[in-house]
């Protein structure tokens, strides 16, 4: 079970825990056929962390320096993560710590553009409230 996980579960690990799941099952006879369900569908749970707009969002594209891909949202996600990790090293975190944070904290990865070819854009929303310290850029810091 996962106590918490960021979108994408970047490192292959969330906060992995032994746990208990209490569930109720129901059955809709013929429902998969009736509703054309091929892969699981779900409703989100009713309890969610509250961050409002208190996020810092990082952008990633499918290019870096001279390297250019075509509409590759996986590369864009990777670039967004690398940008976020580079940024977090300003606040005392090692690369491995920051990479882990992106995998366990409730970050959001959004496919923000797959239509303006050749560049796919993925944005990474990092919640500010999980940190003890302020991490917004500032002239004073």
């Amino acid at each position, binding site marked *: 079970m996962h106590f918490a996980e960021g979108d994408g579960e970047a*490192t292959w690990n969330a906060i992995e825990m032994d746990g208990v799941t209490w569930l109720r099952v129901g059955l809709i006879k013929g429902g998969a056929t009736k509703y054309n369900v091929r892969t699981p569908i779900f409703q989100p749970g009713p309890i969610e962390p509250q961050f409002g707009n208190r996020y810092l969002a990082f952008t990633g594209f499918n290019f870096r320096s001279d390297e250019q891909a075509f509409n590759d949202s996986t590369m864009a996600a990777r670039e967004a993560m690398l940008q976020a990790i580079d940024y977090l090293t300003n606040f005392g975190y090692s690369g491995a710590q920051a990479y882990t944070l992106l995998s366990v904290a409730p970050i959001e990865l959004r496919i923000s553009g797959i239509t303006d070819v050749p560049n796919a854009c993925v944005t990474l929303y990092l919640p500010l409230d999980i940190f003890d310290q302020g991490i917004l850029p500032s002239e004073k810091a």
Partner: protein
Amino acid sequence: MAPRFSESGVSRFDDRDMGAPRIRCEVGKRLSEQRDIGHNRWHPEVPPLIEIEPGGEVILEAPGYDDYQLQDNDNTNDVSTMDLTRVHPLAGPVAVRGAEPGDLLVVDLLELSPLSGVGYSCIIPEIGGILRDIYPEAYKSVWYMRGNVYAESRHIPGVRIPALPHPGVIGVAPSHEMLIQWNDREAATWTLRISPAAQEYTFRFLCQELCSRWATCILPKATGKPPGMPSRWMA
């Protein structure tokens, strides 16, 4: 004084009759030594541990994905030597009476809670996710959960992670036909995208299908059974 989370054998979920059938997990014991032995392979021949009626409830307890291989300490020896064929121990299968292919199984998650309160997040060499080429070294953070609100780790100070729990792995058993389709469909991608060490692990997963500890668990391609037999539904 810091709470002592690592006491082996301590479950935060009381061992009393909760009024619903329950697959128990003894904290600290690997799956194969539990009283209720689950599984970690999707396969139609894994016999159900329990059967419930539609509308029924069940309580499922399971070890973490590491099957209690990871230790609450500050080194990564356990990460480097982790036996990946043991990962993702699952509580089940649970048979739902009357369920068959074409039905929609509706699962309401009524509670998701930590058992021991100790969690882990690792970067595993050769496996380590989308940035494994940049972070190839083993890394481990140990997380303490006092309940269902926050997780904190001495290895990543200055953050509190709010709970957003989910069951991690939940699904229904494939039919023999579907299992063959999965394996055939994915086979080509392994050689293309995964490092040699990870490939070995992938193939070890497959090989486990051959020598699984359940006598009835046989490699789907060798069964000769007609495809499309009703799959057992699992949660």
